[in-house]
């Protein structure tokens, strides 16, 4: 491993941290440019890390030159790079979107610009901290360091929600802050118990020393509860619809697309790398059941919504269920890798699709001035690009080919059939049908042709374009499934399954 090669690993963490500091000092005017520059830097470094991992296998990086377990290590395997890539793509798109979002607000809204300039500055600092924490979380190999990244993530995400000053946004931001702090504290208590029982913080070391006992079981319960709460797994999703729908749209896209995935990733990482698949089959079954319940409940609620952004938020409740289904399927049996990679693939395609849909929704709401689903007639005529982006994202949620959602669902369904748990396959497919219903709940009125004269409306072209590009990417994500699945195989906890299972 060359000197430069492994040092790419710290770039996605250090770069946004430096930008955040700089953005705080230089103020709002140059912050968007710094943000875009950082986004391209992160894309570049993640590509370099990905190529290195594909060619040379997993990377372990000793921060400060200290070996684990005394020091803190970074660790990049296929899964970590996969999540970094997801974050880089969605993050770059939201960054481009935010530039347009904050400038068009000042130009077009007609009212006194007020604090929007300040909000833009705060947005960039918070978003850069958030991005650094996401990348840091995906790369960290240390249980306590993960806690610190979780707290940065929670504080910056809650700060993004409270950038919107309406009462509803402040209430849901406050609730979100409580939820995220409680989740982190439950996680930290779990880490303290693990340290008490095993004496280490390094994940690989913890995994080697793991044994089933009172302390480890309690730690598993606390960590799982904390992360399920932060991810919004049914029935712990109570905070989610309000937080996602009341935030400003760039923040909604980041929260629904990325932040929820990070806590899911953490659970996945600990579950299989530290807790040896949940210390037994029981806990995984519980999570799988809750995931199945979430798929149905969230989708039914989404169909019943009257507001666009709230519909999308409930859709997230449903889509998160797909992620948790993998916990009851991913075992050491021959279908284990299919289930695991299917869930992870779903995280990627949902992140792109849902972020794109929130971005489209933001452009639409900005333009028509409300998000009432019953008054969306003719929106398709006025903003074809935004509606097209929404539709492409919607097709991904339904899981039709050639979307990434299709690949994910294919893997999950075949794993559930192979394992004999056919009822999971039924729920997964039913979720797709329900997704079609709630996507049409918006598309139906939006595509109605109405006669409208030319209306003055705020310029939202750049918002529409960025949303469309991201949705377009998620739409064709299945075409990339071969290299992406090859990436996921590197360092997977299901290596033994792969050796036996592949023909």
């Amino acid at each position: 491993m060359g000197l430069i090669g492994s040092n790419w690993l710290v770039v996605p963490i250090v770069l946004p941290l430096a930008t955040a500091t700089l953005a705080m000092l230089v103020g709002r005017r140059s912050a968007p440019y710094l943000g875009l520059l950082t986004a391209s830097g992160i894309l570049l470094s993640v590509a370099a890390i990905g190529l290195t991992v594909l060619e040379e296998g997993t990377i372990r990086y000793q921060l400060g030159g200290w070996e684990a377990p005394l020091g803190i290590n970074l660790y990049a395997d296929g899964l970590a790079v996969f999540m970094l890539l997801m974050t880089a793509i969605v993050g770059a798109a939201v960054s481009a979107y935010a530039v347009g979002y904050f400038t068009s607000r000042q130009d077009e809204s007609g009212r006194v610009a007020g604090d929007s300039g300040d909000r833009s500055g705060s947005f960039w600092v918070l978003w850069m901290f958030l991005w650094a924490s996401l990348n840091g979380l995906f790369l960290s190999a240390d249980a306590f360091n993960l806690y610190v990244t979780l707290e940065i993530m929670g504080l910056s995400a809650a700060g993004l929600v409270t950038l919107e000053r309406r009462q509803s946004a402040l209430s849901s931001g406050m609730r979100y802050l409580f939820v995220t702090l409680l989740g982190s504290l439950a996680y930290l208590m779990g880490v303290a118990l693990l340290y008490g029982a095993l004496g280490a913080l390094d994940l690989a070391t913890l995994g080697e020393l793991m044994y089933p006992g009172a302390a480890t079981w309690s730690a598993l319960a606390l960590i799982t509860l904390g992360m399920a709460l932060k991810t919004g797994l049914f029935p712990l999703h109570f905070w989610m619809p309000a937080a996602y729908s009341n935030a400003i749209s760039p923040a909604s896209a980041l929260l629904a697309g990325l932040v929820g995935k990070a806590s899911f990733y953490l659970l996945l990482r600990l579950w299989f790398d530290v807790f040896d698949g949940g210390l037994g089959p029981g806990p995984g079954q519980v999570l799988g059941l809750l995931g199945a319940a979430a798929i149905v409940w969230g989708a039914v609620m989404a169909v019943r919504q009257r507001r666009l952004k709230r519909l999308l938020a409930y859709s997230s409740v449903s889509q998160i269920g797909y992620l948790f289904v993998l916990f009851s399927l991913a075992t050491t049996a021959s279908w284990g890798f299919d289930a695991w990679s299917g869930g992870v693939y779903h995280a990627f395609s949902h992140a792109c699709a849902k972020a794109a849909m929130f971005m489209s929704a933001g452009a639409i709401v900005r333009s028509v001035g409300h998000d009432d689903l019953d008054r969306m007639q003719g929106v398709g005529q006025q903003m074809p690009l935004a509606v097209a982006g929404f539709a492409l994202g919607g097709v991904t949620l339904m899981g039709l080919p050639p979307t990434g959602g299709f690949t994910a669902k294919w893997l999950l369904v075949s794993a559930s059939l192979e394992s004999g748990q056919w009822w999971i396959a039924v729920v997964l497919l039913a979720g797709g049908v329900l997704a079609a219903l709630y996507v049409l709940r918006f598309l139906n009125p939006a595509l109605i042709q109405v006669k409208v004269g030319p209306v003055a409306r705020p310029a939202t072209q750049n918002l529409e374009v960025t949303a469309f590009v991201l949705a377009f990417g998620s739409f064709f994500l299945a075409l990339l499934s071969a290299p992406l699945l090859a990436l996921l195989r590197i360092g997977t906890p299901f290596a033994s399954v792969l050796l036996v299972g592949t023909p």
Partner: protein
Amino acid sequence: MLSLFFDAVLALALPLLAWRVLTTRDLYRAVILFIAFGLLVALSWARLDAPDIALAEAAIGAGLTGALFLNTVGGLVGRKRSPSRESDESREVAERREAIQSSPGEPVDEVMRPWWVRLALTVPILALGLALGWAVVSFPEPAIDLAQQASDNLEASGVDHGVTAVLLNFRSYDTLLEIGVLLLAVVAVWSLDLGRVRGGQAALSKGLPVLHGLVRLLTPIMIIVGGYLLWAGAKQPGGAFQAGAVLGALGVLLVLSGLVRPPLSDGSGLRIGLAVGFAVFLGIGTAVMLATGELLNYPPASTYGLIIIIELFLTVSIALTLAALFVTAPPRKEQGSKEHSEEKGEES
């Protein structure tokens, strides 16, 4: 025997005190009890041979956090007398607030979940308590002894004090991110655009010459204590956090007593001061990559010097940040003077 008894009483007192904090009707009293709780926690840490964190808990956990709580409770209760946003808020809201504040001495509370929710909650929470209790009583002898490893590597760490070695060398990456959290918190608080602390500050600054004298007397002492803590950290308990906490507390005292005007609302000087610790830490951490090949891996010859430089700047930023979190200045000048006209005089 006596000390065992003392430990038992202290350990029993902590959960009971926490319970009192959460059930005392009066919010002011709850916060006072919270400060007492923080001090008892600090005491128990002193008993557990952890003077570094006992010091930090007393200063930050009990002192500054307690002041933050008092300030906020004061803000919620005292607003009736010093309304600042009355102009831009609907009458309805004002009336609701009026109703809530009918008894200023006893801030609104007693909004609790219904009794059956509370009853149903006790079962899973008791179960959790029993499981955790069993877990901590049955901790096995851990297979890994990090204490031994830390002490074996102390020589190479550049400092002679274990905790400082962990914080600024073995696990300095955590510390770097943690300083990031402080900076992030200031930005997040500023983004809420709360305006400056009022009420308490004005009351204290008028007609309390004793306080002025006391603060004047304390200022040089606290600066000396802070400097000593920073210097001592390399060899014994102390370091940037304890020093920063003491100096930050001094900052809060100075602002409260009115001797020092709250920091400039849009001062780039203040912003630089807040960010400099993080920036220097990040900069040095990255720069040493060129020499040693890893982030935060200091070259052996200059380890001590680099750690001292980092600690010095950290102390400045930690002190300023803790004070700034208390004062919550608005991020923009125009904004501040427009919305809080009564402060116009101070601002210029």
